[in-house]
């Protein structure tokens, strides 16, 4: 939601002083919606993109009770960590597809050469990525939390941290993907680049959920995740745009 609000805000700025027709044609919102719609269409026709990360998420989480044992107390103690680590890895798994196919078939070049500023197009792609991978994780997380006997008080905290945190994963991950997209086997490098950036989100998210389980206020941790979210929302698209320019050079 916040992402959308942001994009609408940006459309207010006129781009081209010359003629109003051009402004209409080149409105940020139109460009944003255009790329968003395209990426969602492609994802719907290529369902692997949606199912793979989700399946991975579910499998990891269901394996833990099997490996550790069914004691409710142990599971509920480690539940926040498991859910968040799984979400993080599921996102990492899906990142590669964010720009790879566009790079391989030349669409990325065409986006760079379009008169629209690249950060708008990139932001749309990242938003689409979040809708495809982040949102399904959030929707299924409460169900998996039941499996892990997550403390009742923690559900709201779990959802809130995921809601604020998964976009951060998509945004920061996009920077890493953009940097490695030109490299043939960039997978390992991508993990090395991106995982350290994910650690703050992981720490504050799990800490918020743990605090909530104790019945204490966790707004401090949430505020930090929100800060990470807005920070990456405003800066990442520019970094990604610049990185793509370097990668295609």
């Amino acid at each position: 939601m916040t992402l959308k609000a942001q994009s609408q805000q940006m459309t207010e700025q006129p781009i081209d002083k010359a003629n109003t027709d051009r402004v209409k044609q080149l409105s940020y919102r139109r460009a944003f919606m255009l790329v968003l719609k395209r990426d969602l269409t492609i994802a719907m026709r290529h369902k692997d993109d949606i199912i793979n990360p989700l399946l991975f998420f579910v499998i990891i989480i269901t394996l833990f009770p099997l490996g550790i044992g069914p004691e409710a107390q142990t599971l509920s103690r480690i539940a926040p960590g498991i859910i968040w680590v799984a979400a993080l890895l599921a996102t990492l798994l899906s990142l590669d597809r964010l720009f790879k196919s566009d790079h391989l078939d030349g669409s990325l070049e065409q986006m760079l050469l379009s008169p629209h500023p690249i950060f708008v197009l990139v932001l749309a792609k990242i938003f689409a990525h979040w809708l495809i991978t982040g949102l399904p994780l959030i929707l299924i997380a409460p169900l998996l939390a039941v499996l892990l006997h997550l403390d009742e008080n923690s559900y709201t905290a779990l959802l809130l941290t995921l809601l604020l945190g998964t976009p951060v994963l998509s945004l920061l991950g996009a920077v890493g993907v953009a940097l490695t997209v030109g490299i043939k086997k960039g997978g390992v490098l991508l993990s090395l680049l991106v995982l350290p950036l994910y650690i703050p989100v992981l720490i504050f998210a799990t800490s918020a959920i743990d605090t909530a389980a104790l019945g204490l206020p966790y707004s401090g941790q949430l505020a930090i995740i929100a800060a990470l979210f807005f920070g990456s929302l405003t800066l990442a698209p520019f970094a990604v745009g610049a990185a793509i320019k370097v990668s295609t050079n």
Partner: protein
Amino acid sequence: MPKPTSTPLISAVKLTCIREERLLFDELSLDIHPGDIVQVEGPNGSGKTSLLRILSGLSQPYDGIVNFKNQKINRCREEFQQNLLYLGHLAGVKGEMTAEENLKFNLALHGSCDNNSSVIDSATKNEQNTLAYLAKVNLSGFEDSLASHLSAGQHRRIALSRLYQSNAPIWILDEPFTAIDKQGVASLEALFTGHAQRGGCVILTTHQDLISINPDQIKKITLDYSYA
């Protein structure tokens, strides 16, 4: 024929390009005026694609400047890109989308709705136009086929269909004839001639001779790695 007095659409000043520690070209200067059809020639690996990418602003030259109407392209990127149509080796066509969706996206991405914004409002007219452009590249009947189900040549044709709509004066085309049949090549050549007559310019690389274009009209740039 070129009019030397007019402002060049694109001019390059002393371009130097180095790839993999090899000097591809050095001190390459050229002026491209409205009405020019420029064919870049040279053996494989001689830097044709590199030159086109530098002219389109996708790559940075090792040294030298590219100007658009006497302004550095980095200074007037937005304006330059509105005046540019670049088609690379890779067609920029998504296999998961139909021919029609691909063309529509490409047109909208480049903000090129001709005859001004009225077209945007009348969606039906837009639709007819899209179909008409696909018909021009012999893809009628394939509008709703996924691009991944089409042949290599048809794939290429989807990308090329943009040319029929384009108002951009500068066309930079890297191997546009790859996988295109003889008839298709002939109609593209006719399109290039028409574009040049309307005051546009075409810069292309191809290993074929351009048959139906008057040889006097073609300017040739030959890149030859050996003498560099």
